[in-house]
């Protein structure tokens, strides 16, 4: 779909190439696409996404070439797997603009080169995880939490590490008593094994875990299902969502959801902002942008029906301190679990 009914009209053609997984992955592909679609609606750009046949640099570059040849010269790519493809594309297609989310272009040697037609965007997932951790700890006050990751890739790891720091912070500063055991921090190893997600969540719940932070795509879907089933049979368990506000995914009855809160990174916002900047002639080419607490690039949702007002208040205080730099969250494992 091109064309819009808002009256705004623009010549800009915005293309996106999806990473592994589908456009509906409830994660970075979907988030990015939602931002692009929002731009279509608000700004009148025309849009298109392509799904590559595989996940190699060649597959990605081919689709970028297809978009380029079809006139889509503003191209958004989510995921660090695009790093080497964009490295080549930015010089090959000099008159095109590239937005690389979660990564920075390099030739395979991790020497980053961001050309003038490219913006590289990173998110402070650890800060997002931290806030979710604080929110969880304060809301639950005491109990156990767990973490289920998909594959061991940097954004997922950073969510995990941040979450653990958030729990610790709340225990130390807000008198909560939340435990997170090493055995309950796991990477399932894929983003699509729903059954394993269900089983892992069940195993953790059975061992007394009250809330699980899932940064695992389809694996998280399995965990959410397990939580729904348990809540409906009277148990009191929670899931903390990731990337986008997953509240709706956790709905099991009317408006009630098992999603306590979500550790969000505003990918949609980032994609939208870049498109808008381009239209305004302010495309920050050559820069590496960090979306973090300071610029509201990460955080928990504005509305968290499952969080008490008190909790929200605590989180918002912490959020302020993150912004001001009073609190810093490490993006490294250090002595954290996994």
């Amino acid at each position: 779909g091109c064309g819009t009914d808002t009256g705004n009209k623009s010549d800009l053609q915005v293309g996106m190439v999806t990473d592994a997984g589908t456009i509906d992955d409830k994660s970075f592909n979907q988030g990015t696409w939602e931002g692009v679609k929002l731009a279509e609606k608000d700004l009148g750009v025309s849009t298109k996404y392509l799904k590559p046949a595989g996940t190699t640099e060649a597959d990605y570059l081919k689709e970028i070439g297809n978009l380029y040849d079809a006139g889509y010269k503003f191209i958004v790519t989510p995921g660090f797997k695009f790093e080497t493809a964009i490295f080549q594309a930015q010089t090959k297609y000099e008159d095109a603009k590239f937005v690389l989310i979660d990564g920075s272009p390099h030739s395979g040697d991790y020497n980053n080169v961001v050309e003038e037609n490219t913006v590289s965007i990173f998110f402070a997932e650890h800060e997002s995880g931290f806030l979710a951790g604080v929110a969880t700890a304060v809301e639950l006050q005491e109990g156990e939490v767990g973490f289920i990751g998909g594959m061991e890739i940097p954004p997922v790891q950073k969510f995990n590490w941040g979450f653990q720091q958030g729990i610790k912070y709340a225990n130390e500063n807000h008198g909560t008593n939340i435990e997170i055991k090493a055995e309950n921090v796991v990477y399932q190893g894929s983003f699509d094994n729903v059954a394993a997600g269900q089983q892992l969540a069940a195993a953790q719940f059975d061992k007394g875990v009250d809330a699980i932070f899932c940064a695992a795509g389809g694996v998280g879907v399995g965990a959410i299902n397990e939580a729904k089933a348990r809540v409906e049979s009277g148990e009191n368990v929670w899931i903390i969502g990731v990337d986008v506000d997953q509240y709706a995914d956790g709905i099991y009855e009317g408006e009630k959801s098992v999603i306590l809160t979500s550790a969000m990174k505003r990918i949609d916002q980032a994609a939208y902002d870049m498109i808008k900047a381009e239209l305004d002639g302010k495309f920050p080419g050559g820069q590496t942008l960090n979306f973090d607490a300071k610029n509201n690039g990460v955080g928990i949702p504005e509305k968290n029906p499952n969080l008490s007002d008190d909790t929200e208040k605590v989180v918002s205080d912490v959020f302020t301190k993150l912004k001001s730099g009073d609190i810093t969250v490490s993006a490294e494992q250090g002595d954290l679990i996994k």
Partner: protein
Amino acid sequence: MWTLIAQIFPYAIAFTIPLLITSLGGLFSERSGVVNIGLEGLMVVGSFTGAIVIYTLQPIMSPDLAVWIGLLAAALAGGVFAILHAFASINLNANQVISGTAINMMAGALTVFLARNVTGSGNIPIVRGLLRRDVPILSEIPVIGRLFFTSTYATTWLVLAILLLGWYVIYKTSYGLRLRACGEHPHAADSAGVNVYKVRYIAVILSGAFSGLGGGILLVTIAGEFTGSVAGLGFLALAALIFGQWKPLGILGATAFFGLASTIANVSSVIPMLKVIPGVILKVFPYIVTLIALVAFSKSSQAPKAAGEPYEKGKR
């Protein structure tokens, strides 16, 4: 140890059930003489249809009722889709393996394509699947109650009932007798006045319906959304069929083994006791055991003699 088993048992069963019903579908098809390698695709079709029906109905009626209607629709759709395979392998004497492969490819492409056309997204989430319940009274029985009657899905009992019924049909009814005859010696069946084509059509359609149901059950118990794939479960069901020696009780054992082994492998990372075993060993364990079992059973293979052979009236 006991608590570990007690904990994972319900999930192992949950994982077993879609496999079991799909495998039973394969059993009907192969016992009639038609190899059905398209079980995977038929499960996908079931999962898709179930999802789309439940997705549409849940907002306007009782979610539970919607789930059951969805399961019914999944079975129906699987059965209808299987006609493609039946037509190719029964009427056209096609190579059944190739036709099954085509079924798998078609199901994958077509369902996602339709999903996108209907919901605008390649995935179809459902708000709510089936709830787990303890079976009254029975769940109080020591040991057994904890293992078998706690946290069960209604579909588990449904599938076990179908299995029992399937066993009865295959071994006790006239259709079963004819079915087995068609899989062993279709010409004998034909000359005894059995309509081989009809028997095989029914069997292949049943295999589609059961696989469709399997896909639907996977959706409402585990997956919670349609994503265009069932992650190789259909192929695993096929392996279970051979592992289980084309016998209803055999496939019950084989699928239960897969269910247990893969559940253990999946949750091993959160079970301290299992953590000492290298992950790769746990993951490949079910597959290696299957290979060993196939070797062990190879001598006394009960494979239907005519399975995979197109039936031509004139030929002998």
